[in-house]
């Protein structure tokens, strides 16, 4: 499937990546060739083949609904770019 610059910009927006037009143009070629390589998959008949998401074909185990972790907010917030009173600071979202 051919890729256009608008597709790259759309993916960049969905991925929350700033990408100017020059960068997007640069990626169109690379991504186009990668998708061309990936398109070889279409040659395989996969009718009736179940997708495999886990290499051991395992299912997610459930654990008991019990508290196992203590509150370590202060510890984890030591690495945050900006915090105040136990909250992560970001630009104002609601005026």
């Amino acid at each position: 499937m051919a890729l256009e610059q608008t597709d790259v910009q759309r993916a960049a927006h969905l991925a929350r990546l700033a990408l100017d037009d020059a960068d997007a143009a640069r990626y169109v070629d690379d991504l186009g060739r990668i998708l061309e390589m990936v398109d070889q998959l279409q040659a395989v008949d996969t009718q009736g083949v179940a997708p495999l998401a886990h290499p051991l074909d395992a299912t997610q185990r459930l654990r008991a609904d019990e508290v196992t972790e203590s509150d370590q907010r202060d510890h984890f917030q030591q690495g945050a770019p900006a915090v105040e009173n136990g909250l992560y600071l970001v630009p104002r979202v609601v005026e």
Partner: protein
Amino acid sequence: MHDKTLTQLAAGLAAGDYSSREITQSLLSRIDRLDGELNSFISVTREHALAAASAADDARAKGNAGPLAGLPLALKDIFCTQGIKTTAGSRMLDNFIAPYNATVVDKLNASGMISLGKTNMDEFAMGSSNENSYYGPVKNPWDLSAVPGGSSGGSAAAVAAGLVPAALGTDTGGSIRQPAAFCGITGLKPTYGRVSRYGMIAYASSLDQAGPMARTAEDCALLLGAIAGHDVHDSTSVARGVPDYTAELGESLSGLKIGLPKEYFGDGLAPEVEAAVREAVKVFESFGACVREVSLPHTHYAIPAYYVIAPAEASSNLSRFDGVRFGHRCDNPTDLIDLYKRSRAEGFGDEVKRRILIGTHTLSEGFFDAYYKKAQQIRRLIRQDFLDAFEDVDVLMGPASPTPAFDLGANKDPVSMYLQDIYTIAINLAGIPGISVPAGLVGGRPVGLQILGPHFAESQLLNVAHQFQQATDWHQRRPAFAEENA
């Protein structure tokens, strides 16, 4: 000291020939002297290492030391280490001090092993050459103009140069086995789920697996025993007992059935690499092993399937790097979306952005079935190829890489670079274990023999590799860089 294996160092410690502090100081001095040229470490944790070495010596004096106590190693900078910078090779995490230890790090600490530092790697483990690190490329000690392989290239180069006797790496599509092959060391990717992934910065969660890198299979067996096992913090780790991997290293290989996948010996394989691998297989025939050709018919589709699945998982995993709770944040964001977009654009390098974009595109509306679902269906076919092959043979053998290490900067096209992993990627999709052992030199650069087994056949793979290393000396060869700087 720098030329000894973990096993040899352990024997010397037990005999009182030297202390752990002496080993640690000796290797730290060597890192200081040589790593400026190699760039294999991102962080050297001198004070931590010396303190841990003294503690190990005290424990030994009191008779409380286990078999691994006081032995040095290095950790790929993808494993969280409490209080120590953990970058995953990315500008995004250049300021990140991990608030907790990965489970494998806790296990190694509990065994008394001593980490000398965190090794360089392709950013977020995305790469086959170690040229994608924010901290610059690693050089191959066998030839400083060559790449060490990726993404655990820093770990492989450090071991090959004698800076550490062993290291931990991670393998998502070949990132332990290919750099092990390029640097002439031994590297094992265990079965998916054999080793906890908790605290290992995730690239592609259904493919990533940590494993040992060392000079010998015997040392890999020691290390795997220390890190393997179920972890309540990782629901993808497998609840299954851990065997004594060193106990089975002496098993006879007479009657071993070896399969050579015909798809691993076709176009694209350098003739000199093929010759080295076939010579290595003859060694097993001399042990009484039987060799036959087998087929893995979907091999050709492994790379396309991987480059849908891995980027899709990466685009999800890397969404946590948003400039809010940790890591890089852009200056003066105008609003929340601007904060996200610019922090991520500034923090991630080119290859990471490329894979995030591919992953996001293939998962987006209208493309999911054609790409992601299709790739997961083909993943099942690839896995079934291996299961079918292991009905007839005990192990598979082939090259770890189609060529020896290539020159730094030689492979600029991303698709050509991806094809470097043609013999390693399918193994991750299937979740089976694989090991690369040194098996020759081509133009002065090492060649790796890759040995594959069924799920949880690590003991067998380690024994097969160990027997090979008892009969050959490829694993004892050292690069001139290490010899000249002895």
